[in-house]
């Protein structure tokens, strides 16, 4: 009974979400507008990371490196007079190309080795940016990045950047959905489950791994490019290791392997941090309260979520919804599969 109706209901939900997304920016208070931009940017990066971890079973502790590469690859030509809109192309392309190049040797490492490799890669990238001062502005940073635009059409205000960002989010989600549902996508899932089984089934494992790695880097690069134009200032300090870890947290909180998980993860983590900041900066807060409060509460939220929903928020919700539906509809292979995948994925790290 529910089966045939489900797609249309789903389409309706997506349409409502899309309309809300579009309607929201102008009515948001100013600080929420830039927050809205950041949630979108983080969702893009996290989506790539989820794809990499959830579908290809690979871990990156250095995703912020590609975010940085995208930002610099977009900003440097723009600073030197190239049309800024070109940056939306150079950012992701350069990030993806570098990922593909380093991916060939790096992806020979697995599990924790790869996690370390990506972490080391980010530290190396940060050193390079800091030392290549003539090109990157060094540790002082790259300033005077022009606003994003084509000809006289320029994005200057947070609202305009919100639209640019969420357009990018939509594009990234559509690409991801297609990748996940395509034949290579199914092969990727096989990769995450068992690499040797996938190889035995004739999946070109090494090539797919590099492709997903490059795709996820491309996402991060795109987000980085928008970030550079939005802030018009970037520096190595904008891309610390902690940011990579933050992306990992967003992916884990939202739930690996889920497109929506990355959105939920990015939104939940960003909003919790923001809320704590607001509370911490209320007048009459004693000196160290903001720090203590924000660290303690953020940590507790993280711990409680991961202990209660170890596979992340979105998989937990879908599992619950599916369980409720189970009475109406036949067995929920998908859910069982998701659970199994989540637990298998957890063995990646």
């Amino acid at each position, binding site marked *: 009974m529910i089966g045939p109706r489900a797609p249309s209901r789903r389409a309706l939900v997506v349409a409502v979400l899309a309309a809300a997304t579009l309607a929201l920016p102008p009515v948001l208070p100013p600080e929420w507008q830039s927050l809205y931009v950041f949630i979108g940017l983080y969702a893009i990066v996290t989506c790539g990371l989820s794809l990499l971890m959830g579908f290809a079973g690979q871990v990156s502790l250095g995703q912020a490196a590609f975010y940085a590469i995208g930002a610099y690859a977009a900003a440097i030509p723009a600073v030197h007079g190239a049309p800024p809109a070109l940056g939306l192309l150079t950012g992701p392309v350069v990030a993806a190309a570098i990922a593909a190049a380093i991916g060939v040797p790096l992806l020979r490492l697995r599990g924790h080795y790869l996690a370390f490799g990506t972490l080391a890669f980010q530290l190396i990238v940060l050193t390079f940016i800091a030392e290549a001062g003539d090109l990157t502005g060094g540790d002082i940073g790259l300033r005077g990045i022009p606003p994003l635009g084509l000809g006289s059409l320029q994005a200057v205000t947070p609202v305009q950047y919100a639209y640019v960002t969420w357009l990018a989010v939509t594009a990234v989600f559509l690409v991801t959905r297609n990748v996940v549902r395509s034949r290579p996508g199914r092969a990727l899932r096989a990769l995450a489950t068992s690499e040797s089984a996938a190889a035995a089934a004739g999946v070109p494992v090494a090539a797919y791994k590099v492709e997903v790695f490059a795709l996820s880097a491309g996402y991060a690069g795109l987000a980085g490019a928008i970030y550079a134009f939005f802030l018009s200032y970037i520096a190595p300090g904008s891309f610390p290791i902690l940011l990579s870890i933050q992306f990992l947290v967003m992916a884990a909180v939202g739930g690996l392997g889920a497109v929506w998980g990355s959105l939920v993860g990015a939104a939940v983590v960003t909003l919790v941090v923001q809320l704590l900041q607001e509370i911490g900066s209320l007048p009459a807060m004693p000196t160290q309260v903001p720090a203590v409060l924000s660290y303690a509460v953020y940590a507790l939220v993280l711990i409680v979520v991961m202990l209660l929903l170890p596979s992340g928020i979105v998989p937990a919700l879908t599992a619950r919804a599916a369980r409720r539906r189970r009475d109406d509809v036949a*067995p929920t292979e998908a859910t*069982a599969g998701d659970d199994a995948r989540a637990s298998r994925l957890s063995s990646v790290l």
Partner: protein
Amino acid sequence: MPEGSEPLLEVHDLVVRYGAATALDGVDLAVGRAEMVALVGPNGAGKTTLLDTVSGLVAPAAGRIELRGRLAQVPEGRRLFPEMTVEDNLRLGAWRVRDRRVGPVYELFPHLVELRRRKAGSLSCGEQQMVAVGRALMGQPDLLAVDELSLGLAPQIVDTLAEHLQDLNRRSGMAILLVEQNARLALDICSRAYVIEAGRIALSGPSEQLRSSPEVQAAYLGGAYEE
């Protein structure tokens, strides 16, 4: 089952689920003292799940397990600690009991004496199976559960090991639960057997009786059984 004596292991109406999948669905099984019982069934029927539940590794969704003694399991695939020596593997088998002397195992498997300093991972499969059985025996069990004794071993080695098990059962009165895909072997050395299919006990009874059952012959013994 022999009348009168209280069985060593009793399993009543056991249900085990993994997520949405039901692995065991109302299983009843019993092993008496000093008995040799076989559990036969195809891949994925729930044999290992049953053993793991009895061993306490898997929590049942429903049902009752009564174990009146110590149980030790020889897991499928041996699962030795490959980077440790044979002797260290054996000694770890005695984690639950205080007595860590390995002499009795060496008496049973004299061949292991010369391998005692070798890394377990470097042994042949047959030798590994000896160590695995020896390691389980170190726990001084009343019931020895052996999961797939014959898997991946040459027939002569299987025969030797099977003789050792029968010997143990006869001499020390140790009960043995033999979980096997190789029904022929299992029915040969055990007095009683259960056939498990898709999480349910399909048949049970004395080995003789099962051996002559047409279903068993067709499904597990490859046609007519020859003595």
